[in-house]
């Protein structure tokens, strides 16, 4: 049975149970169905590899019940536990009043933004056919350890209530991650995610990216050197700037963000970016999404509170506001050109970063895991892992930011970022 038919029959089943209960005057139901398939291949040396398949198939319901005019109970179910629903809602002890996370939604308006129809969930054979092609062994891989991951995710949700307002929507997403680096991500969906992309060039792009990364890995087998002093300028990659942008946008108030960025920067959260990694026409509350400006010098006084227009959740968690595609812009030139203009520097391609401190004294600790040293315009050596500490304000005011928009995201938190490179003079950081 297709996803859309399944969640429809689930909703019907719940409604039948609720209809039979005399004292229930209203309900709100959120049904979510997610299927995720991940294939990871780890290549170790001479063409030996380990391929792991991980599949999760889950469906769940969040239900709120109104008795005699008051929203009193809240339930969460794995989908197969609906059979418990009948006995639970008939228990007379459950009469306490509760807050309702649905209260932010004007449910009476849901039907106006409804997307209905089965056309959104047409099955495609692309995934199964694609895997073998994409994961074929690469010629240069015999000497390096290497991992690649392909993720396929499809999701369908239904939001409905006792007025029979309904929102149905769904999405599909294919992502390739090669040795920790995200390949140009491709979305294939109708309904929920904006901007469908063709898979015609997917394999070519995948092979090209993989080939570049393998060359880099072969080079990284050279003896790495140790950075001991702050004598070289740094070229800091989007893995760091993206993490900073996402953390600032998610956890910090606008006045703090204002202290960090000079006036030429803008920080925008745009759930409607065409082809964006976290683009949604409708959010999980059923509302239409729209862009929000988190920092822009020209309109700074208009934004006193952080506010995202879109909400995300799973059936297990309450509705919470969250970032979608955070875009930090305001730089000049491209990061690749930086390497042509400057002669000697350390290029940081992969790092973990954490922001510490209070108010205007925010600092970022960058634990560099992958970097290489360039001397006189030539790639000279890989660099051993090291960590630096930089004041955030100096990072953006004294560093030179490029205008690239390169996608990065975290496995653990929702939201993606589109950021560029930063050139940081040697006087601005300290090595630990």
């Amino acid at each position: 049975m297709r996803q859309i038919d399944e969640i429809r029959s689930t909703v019907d089943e719940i409604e039948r149970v609720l209809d039979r209960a005399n004292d229930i005057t209203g309900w709100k139901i959120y049904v979510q169905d997610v299927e995720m398939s991940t294939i990871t291949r780890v290549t170790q040396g001479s063409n030996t590899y380990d391929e792991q398949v991980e599949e999760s198939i889950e469906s769940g319901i969040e239900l709120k019940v109104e008795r005699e005019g008051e929203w009193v109970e809240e339930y969460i179910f794995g989908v197969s536990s609906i059979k418990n629903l009948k006995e639970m809602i008939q228990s007379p002890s459950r009469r306490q009043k509760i807050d309702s996370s649905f209260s932010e939604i004007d449910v009476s308006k849901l039907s106006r933004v409804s997307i209905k129809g089965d056309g959104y969930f047409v099955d495609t054979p692309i995934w199964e056919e694609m895997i073998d092609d994409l994961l074929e062994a690469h010629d240069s891989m015999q000497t390096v350890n290497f991992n690649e991951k392909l993720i396929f995710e499809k999701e369908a949700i239904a939001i409905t209530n006792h007025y029979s307002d309904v929102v149905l929507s769904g999405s599909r997403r294919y992502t390739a991650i090669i040795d920790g680096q995200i390949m140009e991500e491709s979305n294939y969906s109708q309904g929920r995610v904006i901007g469908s992309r063709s898979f015609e060039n997917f394999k070519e792009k995948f092979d090209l990216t993989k080939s570049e990364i393998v060359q880099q890995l072969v080079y990284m087998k050279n003896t790495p050197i140790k950075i001991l002093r702050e004598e070289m300028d740094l070229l800091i990659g989007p893995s760091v700037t993206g993490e900073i942008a996402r953390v600032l946008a998610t956890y910090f108030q606008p006045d703090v963000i204002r202290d960090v960025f000079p006036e030429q920067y803008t920080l925008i959260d745009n759930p409607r970016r065409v082809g964006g990694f976290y683009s949604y026409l409708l959010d999980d509350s059923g509302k239409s999404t729209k862009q929000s400006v988190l920092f822009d010098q020209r309109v700074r006084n208009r934004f006193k509170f952080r506010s995202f227009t879109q909400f995300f959740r799973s059936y297990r968690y309450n509705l919470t506001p969250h970032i979608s595609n955070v875009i930090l812009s305001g730089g000049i030139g491209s990061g690749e050109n930086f390497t042509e203009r400057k002669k000697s520097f350390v290029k940081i391609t992969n790092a973990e970063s954490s922001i510490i401190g209070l108010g205007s004294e925010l600092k970022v600790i960058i634990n560099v895991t992958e970097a290489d040293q360039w001397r006189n315009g030539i790639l000279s050596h890989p660099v051993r892992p090291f960590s630096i500490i930089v004041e955030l304000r100096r990072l953006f005011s004294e560093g030179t930011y490029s205008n690239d928009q390169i996608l990065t995201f975290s496995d653990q938190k929702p939201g993606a970022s589109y950021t560029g490179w930063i050139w940081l003079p040697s006087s601005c950081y300290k090595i630990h």
Partner: protein
Amino acid sequence: MELVPPVNHSTLVQNAVDIGVGFADATYVYKEVTVRRKIGNSWKEKSTVDFGSAIRMVAGYTENFMGTNKYSEIGHNVSRMAMKTSRNGGEGEPMIYPSPAHESSVDISADNIVDKEYGGEIEAYCNDFERIFEDHKEITYRYEFEHSTIGREYVSSDPVRNTQIMTLDLLKVELTRRTAIGATKLTMAFGGVNPLNLKLDVVEKKITDTCDILQRMDRAKSIPPARYPTVLSTDSAWTLIHETVGHGVEGEGILNGTSFLRDFKNQMVASLELNVIDDSQVPSAGWNEFDDEGMKTKGTLIIDNGELSQFIHSRRTAYLMEEQPTGNGRLSSYLSRLRSRQTNLIVEPGDWSEEEIIEYVGDGIYIGPITHAQVTLSSGEFVMIPEYGIRIRDGELAEPVFTQMVRGSSLETLSNIEAIGDKVQAYPTMCNKNGRQIAVGMISPIMMIRDLEVR
């Protein structure tokens, strides 16, 4: 409670073996949670019922996983996965440590402290609990009770079957102190599988101590960044050991070569004072009689007088490293793959009383509970963000101070441990690794580090 899975997992596992995989196992997980929260004078209640199955198949080197709560097509999905696994893995011996045959059932879902002492009247317990705050009017507080019943049934293609049922009772408290310069917030949790941890006198002592600190925080100042002789509280000492030693010895990190401890077995990695044990038989939040792949659990001595004596393993990492499994295979939910994870991590007490340690330090910093900690496993660099610090002057605890972070290199810090306290405290806590959360027990005394960077 009786566990009644919606499908027969033995049949599923046998089907996979018939198709050609060398080994298959399945864990059925049932979880029922009730969260009761008091806001104003009214109670809010949220109920969760969730169950599903985690199915694993091993053929040769290949290990595949499927987690699902949709049983309508489970037979079809298992067969599809089995065909994929046997095709990739071939017919060689499955690379997983065999389990001795056994069949057993354990049920420790005993009544909690509220039922025992208050006849089930949660409101009576709460009235007593709220009296703690009568002397702390400046503190605002929120709290909730979480009562979970967790059942697991494990079957495998080896002749192994066990079921395990437990209850977990947690009291979560959030304290806030508002001042002119902002709000300071502290959170804490009590309970576990052992209801004694919910006893009111245990709860009262910790909350009263914390309220005293919070009331003095509005006069707190920042400290100059430097390396200080440092006393770590129970919470921060345990967090240090959990992040550095605990995550450092987990089988997958050792096997993949991503852990900084991979080459240190049978070598000194810490001061002679330090002994660390992982033991899921202790009745704390990480209790398990059997782990999630059917192995009987036991205590594992990880650090023996400063020497790294053992890694912690699941059956798969143990097989691949030619070592013995330690009963640490854990599932965070039925939706994610089994990994070797910690259970109850115990830091063995030393000979020093708290007063002796603080007097010995003379001039330094006492680090309070930790809000966030992170370790870069490949290098062993760690960062911990404390909720507060207390200045130690002339061998006594003086004024509270703001501490932004504590950081250092794991091996250097572990070898700088000079003194370990003689009293342990036990609290439940959650460990989140790669988005996979499991309950672990925190059991540790305080400890003193000779030289640690605090800013």
